[in-house]
């Protein structure tokens, strides 16, 4: 096949994989730490999880800025209108969730009375006051957003692999770390 693939630019590719890496670290860490008995390790893991989450938030903001100021490479012609819409909607949701998941965690921390201090150095403002009921509610919101993110990430990966191995249309190569620079 001789299709010319337009790749995302280096900034977008770097941000994509960095966020992916951090999400793949923060998600299982969050699942694991939650049920640990209280110990110094648990307190450390919570802090690491929060630092990762805020880093994701920062990178997600950069990604949204990038996305708003740049047009992504065009999708291949073989995609049906339905596929294009599905792809578009999934990506919009992914962008929303990589913002919403860390924000809900940040708010939950504030509501539970544990300020977030990024890397133990930079205190983030508490956007909501300490409130037990709100804390519980935000905890559920954070969890639900995470499961939604997990589902969409799985869909995203499945779609990428389908395009690469079944359709062989080069969609995955637009975001691959290796490959010819466009």
């Amino acid at each position, binding site marked *: 096949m001789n299709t010319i693939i337009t790749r995302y630019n280096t900034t977008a590719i770097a941000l994509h994989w960095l966020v992916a890496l951090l999400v793949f670290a923060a998600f299982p860490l969050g699942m694991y730490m939650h049920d640990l008995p*209280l110990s110094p390790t648990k307190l450390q893991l*919570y802090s690491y999880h929060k630092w990762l989450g805020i880093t994701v938030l920062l990178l997600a903001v950069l990604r949204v800025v990038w996305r708003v100021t740049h047009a992504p490479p065009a999708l291949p012609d073989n995609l049906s209108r339905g596929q294009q819409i599905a792809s578009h909607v999934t990506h919009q949701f992914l962008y929303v969730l990589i913002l919403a998941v860390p924000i809900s965690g940040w708010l939950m921390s504030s509501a*539970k009375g*544990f300020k977030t201090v990024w890397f*133990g150095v930079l205190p983030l403002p508490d956007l909501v006051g*300490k409130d037990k009921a709100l804390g519980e509610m935000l905890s559920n919101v954070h969890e639900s957003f995470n499961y939604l993110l997990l589902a969409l990430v799985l869909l995203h990966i499945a779609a990428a692999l389908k395009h690469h191995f079944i359709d062989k249309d080069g969609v995955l190569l637009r975001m691959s770390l290796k490959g010819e620079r466009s």
Partner: protein
Amino acid sequence: MIQRCHMLLAGGLLLCTQVQAVEFKQVLANESSVTFAYKQMGVPLDGKFNKFAAQLAFDPAKIAKAQARIDIDVASIDTGSTEANDEVVGKLWFNAKTYPVASFVSTGLKALGDNRYEATGKLSIKGRTQEVKAPVTFQAAGNRGAFDGSFTIKRLDYAIGEGEWTDVGTVANEIQIKFHLVVKVAPSKK
């Protein structure tokens, strides 16, 4: 009671005026507080003790005789989260079953001027006693007054947090204790 007496010639009366010979003795527990602040992974946190009893005698004119004793029910601790409250009454932290009360007993009070004082005393927690010094301010209004002060202890001096919790990188060693005691004048005995 210190009194200054003047002869009022006109009336031939002996008029005595009081020079602040008031003794603050009654602690209003509902309006007083004992709180603490510490850092966990660089995160500032605070908490309080809900139950404590304070006995106090303070006459601004006779500070050498000032006395204070505060007994804190350590199980009444509120760290801000249930999980931590359950943990810190346990053996590794306060061991509240064996050592239910933490106490401060004053040993001296020094006037620094301008309503500021320095209180010294013995702080006993978990069977360990250390000398502490605390700057204190006292503001009086009518027959009420309020003491405010704070001092910092090192929790490991009192074995608060043993075993894995001796790691001060997670929960800092320095714990700031703040107190606000509202007192009322008791009628002075003559």
